[in-house]
């Protein structure tokens, strides 16, 4: 019996710390996952909570949540699907907020080429290469790319040259591999790379509002609730901005 | 007018090496125990053994030498395999048509004729899987004939058949000679089967040619393994003298001084026929007994004697030109004190007719 005593004490210690420590599963749009990993690391240092991160496209996550996936919090790449989940009762009403705004950047192949509105127009008029964008029907960055091209009056010109990637990561691959000569991608993808890029002015497209919402599954999960609050704190906003997103103060 | 062979084929544990010239008419049998290389030799002649070195000439055509190799499909041969090898996706008619459409010359027989000869007309709509082995082999022979080949190669065509089916085909093969006259190379290890259809014989053992020559000569040569077979026999040619309708017998003349009676044989007077006289059915007497039931007792001279086992000896008996074989126990031979050159009487218990009368022989 005496030999079991240390083990018993250990279990009691863990049990007491578990009383205020929680584990949350955060579903995140794939494009935000690198940023979220950084945020989670800081969050886990400051609190006793543990986070599990699941990355996929917002559409996939949406369907999984509707089918009862055990996610506590959703960080979507758009605002439409969190709103739908709220309406449908899969998420906690009133918990929805914009945690980041995506920004659109033009990249090219080869990586060092000069990029600006003129080079985009020149490529579309006299060049022969493809312009990669995310699918406007399914990806928020794709929709924004379309709006930007319309604002630049290049949308009709681009029609024969557009290739629509399944998501923004694939659009990046198309350019990076040299199959497309230009691409409209997320600024977050290129902000820390040596690759040349042109950051499109925010006025040329509707804000890409990436919204978070607390899901029904996590409505009593203290870790998820604490993390939502953490996302609006100044240190978290700095991290998000540092990764290429815009955040309201 | 011949088939000239010079082959050297090396396998892991086997070598086929022979040089020779075979007649390119009539039926030439390739005879030997299993594993002797008979099939390999036939396949080489057909061009199916491509790794063999050597030279092969058929009449005035070169089929293989050190620089040329005429592929099988250009040799204008036909091949009857032991396992028939009918095309399973075609019915009998289709199988015959396959060969007929690709025939090598226009003078050959038609499918209707060949179907008649081999008795397969009723089977035309059947598929190979619906035929017995004997039927399949008859179709295979018919198919080979429809190619109108320059030479017909047959590899143990009766090898996979039961006795009655084999006999039936043998009968067909003998009858075929009335219709077509193409050279045949016929592989078998059954000397009785060969002696019924072949005139010429090549004896193969362990990949080497032991001897070749006229079948009738080789059959009675004591130094050859042929005469040591359990069913060893001499083959004799004779002509029909007359038919005795009262006793139902035919009288045959072997030569000017030897007559033989045989159960009524088909054939006309003066027709040449061949007889097969098994060595075990010939016994020897020192005098012409008149009190024996044996009908055929021929005077002859002992040509040679060979001991073939613990208790047996084999005696070669000379008629005028031809030879008989007699197998005796050693005890009987010692009792009669048989010696080469001695005049004796051969008592023949049975003789079998090998072919129906044919003016060709």
């Amino acid at each position, binding site marked *: 019996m005496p030999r079991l005593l240390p083990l018993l004490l250990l279990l009691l210690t863990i049990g007491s710390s578990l009383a205020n420590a929680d584990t949350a599963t955060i579903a995140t749009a794939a494009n935000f996952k690198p940023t979220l990993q950084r945020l989670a690391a800081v969050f886990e240092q400051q609190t006793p909570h543990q986070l599990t991160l699941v990355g996929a496209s917002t559409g996939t996550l949406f369907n999984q949540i509707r089918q009862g996936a055990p996610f506590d919090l959703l960080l979507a790449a758009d605002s439409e699907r969190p709103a739908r989940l709220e309406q449908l009762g899969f998420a906690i009403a009133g918990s929805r907020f914009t945690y980041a705004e995506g920004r659109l950047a033009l990249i090219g192949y080869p990586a060092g080429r000069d990029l600006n509105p003129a080079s985009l127009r020149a490529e579309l008029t006299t060049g022969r290469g493809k312009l990669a964008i995310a699918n406007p029907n399914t990806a928020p960055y794709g929709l924004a790319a379309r709006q930007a091209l319309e604002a630049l009056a290049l949308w009709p010109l681009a029609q024969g040259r557009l290739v629509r990637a399944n998501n923004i990561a694939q659009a990046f691959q198309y350019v990076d591999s040299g199959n497309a000569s230009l691409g409209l991608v997320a600024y977050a993808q290129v902000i820390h790379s040596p690759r040349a890029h042109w950051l499109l002015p925010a006025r040329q497209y509707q804000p890409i509002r990436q919204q978070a919402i607390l899901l029904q599954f996590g409505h009593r999960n203290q870790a998820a609730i604490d993390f939502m609050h953490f996302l609006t704190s100044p240190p978290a906003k700095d991290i998000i901005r540092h990764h290429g997103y815009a955040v309201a103060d | 007018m011949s088939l000239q062979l010079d082959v050297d084929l090396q396998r892991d544990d086997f070598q086929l090496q022979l040089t020779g010239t075979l007649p390119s008419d009539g039926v030439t049998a390739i005879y030997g125990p299993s594993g002797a290389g008979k099939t390999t030799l036939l396949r080489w002649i057909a061009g199916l053994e491509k790794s063999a070195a050597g030279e092969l000439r058929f009449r005035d055509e070169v089929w293989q030498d050190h620089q040329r190799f005429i*592929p099988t499909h250009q040799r*204008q041969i036909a091949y009857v395999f032991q396992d028939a090898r009918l095309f399973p996706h075609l019915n009998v008619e289709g199988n015959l048509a396959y060969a007929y459409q690709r025939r090598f010359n226009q003078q050959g027989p038609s499918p209707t004729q060949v179907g008649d000869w081999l008795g397969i007309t009723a089977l035309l709509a059947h598929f190979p899987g619906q035929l017995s082995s004997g039927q399949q082999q008859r179709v295979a022979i018919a198919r080979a004939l429809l190619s109108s080949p320059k030479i017909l190669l047959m590899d143990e065509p009766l090898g996979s058949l039961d006795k009655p089916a084999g006999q039936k085909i043998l009968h067909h093969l003998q009858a075929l000679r009335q219709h077509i006259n193409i050279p045949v190379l016929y592989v078998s290890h059954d000397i009785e089967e060969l002696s019924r259809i072949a005139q010429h014989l090549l004896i193969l053992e362990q990949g080497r040619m032991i001897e070749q020559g006229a079948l009738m000569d080789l059959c009675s040569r004591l130094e050859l393994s042929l005469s040591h077979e359990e069913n060893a026999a001499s083959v004799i040619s004779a002509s029909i003298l007359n038919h005795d309708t009262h006793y139902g017998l035919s009288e045959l003349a072997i030569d000017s001084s030897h007559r033989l009676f045989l159960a009524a044989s088909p054939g006309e007077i003066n027709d040449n026929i061949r007889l097969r006289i098994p060595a075990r059915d010939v016994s020897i007497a020192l005098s012409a007994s008149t009190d024996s039931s044996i009908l055929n007792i021929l005077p002859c001279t002992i040509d040679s004697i060979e001991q073939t086992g613990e208790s047996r000896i084999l005696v070669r008996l000379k008629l005028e030109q031809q030879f008989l074989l007699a197998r005796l126990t050693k005890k009987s031979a010692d009792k009669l004190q048989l010696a080469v050159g001695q005049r004796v009487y051969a008592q023949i218990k049975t003789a079998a007719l090998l072919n129906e009368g044919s003016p060709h022989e």
Partner: protein
Amino acid sequence: MRSLIEMNSMLSAADLAAIVVTLKLATITTIILLLVGLPIAWWLANTRVRAKPLVEAIVALPLVLPPTVLGFYLLLAFAPDSPVGQLWQYLGGEQLAFSFSALVIGSVIYSLPFAVQPLQASFEQLPKSLLEAAATMGANGRDQFFSIILPLSRRGIIGAASLGFAHTVGEFGVILMIGGNIPGETQVLSIALYDRVETLQYSSAHWMAGGLIVFSLLLLGFIYRFNKTASLYPAGRVRS
């Protein structure tokens, strides 16, 4: 007929274009698969080369590789400055990626094992002795191929063609990577279907998915029924 009209109203012009692209892709891919697969399968079934297992493994690789990974490497290969891309342009082709030709190449590689394996199996079962028999009757190699090999391998060929066709119709990952989702050119049924699901157009998605399922069931049912019951040649009585 009514259901067809209903279905028509459920499907947009873009959906119909996707169906046309899909059927065109599957048909062309199947033809090329047979042309490429027949010699490969014949070689594999007959060679004694020691590298045979290696070649078999390479042909089978698409079974193992995730389609998106295969698509990714194809994308790298198709880049205009890659050797493949250079060769293609040298041969007079436009840019390879995002073109219908790219889909055909990708589909052929992706479905190759589905065509080669049934062909190889049926070639291996083909008795070579029958080819010898045909040769003795004067049939050269080409003649043997058409008169003996093809008819006796009918089952394998139909299996290879049907599986290759069905597999191409259901292909998604590779096309997602190399297609660029261009309507009327590279947008196939599976991609259009995926778009519908992603954009929450479930009713249209159900129609397309339902159609795909019915079509595939019919096709696969045909293959299995053919393989099971269609006897190649009657083999009625037992041979004696």
